[in-house]
């Protein structure tokens, strides 16, 4: 058994025991086990990996290995490259708790296994069940690719909870977070994702992290891993290491029994086991009647457990039967989703922008309308210049040209006027708006685009925003325009740095101030003053209309819009909207 992490990681211990227990179920003790631990979080680097590989290679050389059970880290190296290099003919079964799929190379090596994902939907469901008054979820996350993959999935699932704000804490250190969780207001819960590395580069395993955060938190904390239970967390629809280990043990037995691992597809499971810590329920005053009947309650005084043991076991059996069906359905669904994702990727950027942004359509129509008269003016002016260069310029002709230029100038002016009136009077539908909701909805709308462009799009809402009066559709267009601009600005930076943040706070005068901030290359200082001019653009294929129209919309609402550079990198755009008059 090859472990990517150390021997002391709680999830490992439980899984190891469960695998062994499952494989020795027949009581014959025919199978001998050896375990090795790479301990990659504490000893990273190629040299360490090479030494470990040499050591394993020497130690088991000719040792009659029949099977490797691998517990790889996020990179799957322990399930693929290492056993393939050392024991090319020994079958490999792996168990991974991973948000990323096993690379294709692995299945080509004749390796099979189980990829267990976090049950985000189930956990959010459990939170709302236990604490229906939850209005805000603070998500604790890390900075590695895998951490971001998990956060991406949480952001995706968060869309289903319209009444709840999600706030992603990714750019503060764990030390800072352990302080900040102490002053969260009521109505908030903490959802702990993974922090394989925090913003300072320090690695954490989830049990450790839960132990650091849960005791000092002013609100309940939820987790995705069963091994983090007991640290003070309330619980979650968790990955149960014992159940996972048992499933891996069964798979290992099948392969040992002669089944060709190449013919066993890698299982991807997303369903978790609802599990709560009884002591944490007591601490936060959560009524036990709220706990779903199928949930496992841990750390309850033994007598109560004994009393309901049979009932729970029956329910568990029912649940397991359901889980089998559901897993089947989920596998089908995940296949369909993958197909959909491919289609999404194939769509061109332009097509999508046009789909979500009516402003995109508007700018395109307007620039077409304007380019006709502008083109005519240009051609006429050029013709006039050429006539004037001749020896006897035909002044009649030049007079006619000037008259035409004037006519086309008026035509262009009319296009602008039409656009203004379109935005100002006819279609401004002013109504009181719940701005938090508007922001969440717009960010959710842009989320699929963000995924396709591998941008991490986060919404940060700290305080309740005052209501404003405005036109929902137009304000949404302004936001979308800023968000899409931000994504465009980051097309050239490495994936890991593509972070786009939308945040909002109450403004000093009682209104709202919104910030859309990217990590792109920023704006050249000499261009900042011209950003909102019509036809001014820094994009190769830009129309230079988006910000101009945004400005018209915001000013029509009585607000202001401006932009500038972020420190240390990227650009930020801000706009304000006045408060709703009483």
């Amino acid at each position, binding site marked *: 058994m090859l472990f990517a992490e150390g021997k002391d990681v709680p999830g490992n211990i439980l899984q190891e025991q469960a695998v062994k227990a499952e494989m020795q179920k027949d009581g014959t003790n025919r199978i001998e086990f050896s375990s090795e631990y790479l301990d990659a979080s504490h000893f990273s680097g190629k040299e360490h990996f090479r030494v470990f590989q040499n050591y394993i290679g020497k130690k088991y050389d000719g040792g009659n290995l029949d099977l490797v059970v691998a517990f790889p880290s996020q990179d799957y190296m322990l399930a693929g490259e290492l056993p393939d290099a050392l024991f090319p003919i020994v079958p490999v079964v792996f168990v991974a708790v991973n948000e990323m799929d096993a690379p294709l190379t692995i299945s080509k090596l004749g390796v099979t296994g189980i990829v267990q994902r976090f049950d985000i939907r189930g956990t959010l469901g459990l939170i709302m069940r236990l604490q229906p008054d939850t209005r805000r979820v603070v998500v604790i996350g890390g900075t590695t690719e895998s951490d971001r993959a998990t956060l991406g999935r949480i952001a995706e699932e968060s869309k289903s909870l319209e009444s709840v704000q999600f706030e992603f804490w990714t750019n503060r250190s764990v030390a800072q977070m352990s302080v900040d969780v102490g002053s969260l207001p009521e109505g908030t819960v903490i959802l702990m994702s993974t922090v394989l590395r925090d913003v300072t580069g320090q690695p954490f395993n989830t049990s450790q992290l839960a132990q650091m955060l849960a005791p000092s938190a002013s609100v309940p904390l939820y987790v995705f891993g069963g091994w983090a239970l007991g640290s003070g967390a309330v619980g979650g629809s968790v990955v149960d290491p014992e159940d996972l280990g048992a499933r891996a043990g069964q798979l290992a037995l099948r392969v040992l029994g002669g089944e060709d691992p190449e013919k066993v597809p890698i299982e991807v499971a997303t369903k978790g086991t609802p599990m709560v810590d009884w002591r944490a329920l007591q601490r936060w005053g959560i009524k036990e009647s709220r706990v779903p009947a199928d949930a496992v309650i841990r750390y309850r005084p033994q007598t109560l457990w004994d009393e309901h043991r049979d009932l729970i076991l029956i329910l568990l059996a029912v649940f397991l039967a359901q889980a089998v069906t559901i897993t089947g359905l989920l596998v089908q669904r995940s296949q369909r989703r993958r197909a959909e994702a491919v289609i999404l990727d194939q769509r061109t950027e332009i097509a999508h922008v046009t789909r979500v942004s009516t402003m995109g359509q508007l700018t*395109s129509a307007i620039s077409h309308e304007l*380019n006709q*008269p502008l*083109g*005519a003016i*240009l*051609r006429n002016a*050029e*013709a006039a210049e050429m006539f004037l260069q001749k020896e006897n310029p035909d002044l009649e002709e030049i007079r006619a040209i000037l008259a035409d230029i004037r006519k086309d100038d008026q035509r262009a002016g009319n296009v602008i006027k039409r656009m203004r009136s379109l935005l100002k009077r006819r279609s401004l539908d002013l109504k009181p708006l719940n701005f938090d909701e508007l922001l969440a909805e717009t960010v959710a709308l842009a989320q699929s685009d963000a995924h396709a462009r591998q941008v991490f799009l986060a919404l940060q809402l700290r305080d309740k925003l005052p209501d404003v009066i405005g036109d929902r559709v137009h304000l949404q267009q302004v936001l979308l325009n800023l968000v899409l601009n931000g994504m465009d600005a980051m097309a050239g930076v490495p994936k890991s740095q593509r972070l786009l943040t939308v945040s909002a706070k109450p403004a000093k005068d009682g209104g709202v101030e919104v910030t859309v901030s990217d990590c792109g290359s920023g704006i050249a200082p000499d261009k900042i003053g011209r950003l909102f001019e019509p036809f001014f653009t820094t994009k190769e294929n830009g*129309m230079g209309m988006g910000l101009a129209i945004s400005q018209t919309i915001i000013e029509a609402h009585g607000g202001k819009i401006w932009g500038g550079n972020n420190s240390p990198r990227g650009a930020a755009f801000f706009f304000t909207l006045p408060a709703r008059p009483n």
Partner: protein
Amino acid sequence: MNTPTGSGTVYIVDDDESFLKSVSRLLRAAGYSVQAFTSAKKFLEQLAPGMSGCVLADLQMPGLNGLELQAALAKSASPMPVVFLSAQGDIPTTVKAMRGGAEDFLTKLDPKEKLLDAIRRALARGARESKARGHLRELRERFATLTPRELEVLKHVVRGQLNKQIADDLGINERTVKLHRTNLTRRLNVKSVAELTRLTEEAGLFGDGTAG
């Protein structure tokens, strides 16, 4: 550098009359002969064999659009290079236009140097292609004077067959073959079998699908 070269007319097609007028003016000022049309249909209606020059067309027009105009023109008796103008270019349309053999693809706000340069190139190409077409037409007219029997003999000659083989193949006297050969070389005004072969190939008489 942008002086007009060669002959030929620039046919401008654009539904925006004001732009049509302005660009006609500019090209006239630059010394070109210009004809303006407000729709692709009107232009195609007056198209006659032997017309030469180039077409400057708007891409987005009601009725037949620029790409459709390009396709119709390519099939007509007087194909001409097309330069496209668009109020705003998008990549898929550009690619399509260029694949269809467009000389260039400009936006209406491009500077005049770019426009005049594209027109100069299109006219030069149009002249070249029209000259080649004229040469071909003239060549085919010459071959058209041959009798069916002479054509048959010619077909065997350019394959490199000797008179005797030709006589056997056609079931005629060797002396008759000689007579046909003398007549056809005189009518086509050629001196050698090599020249005869080259002209036959140029006219595309037997080699490709245009053999007639």
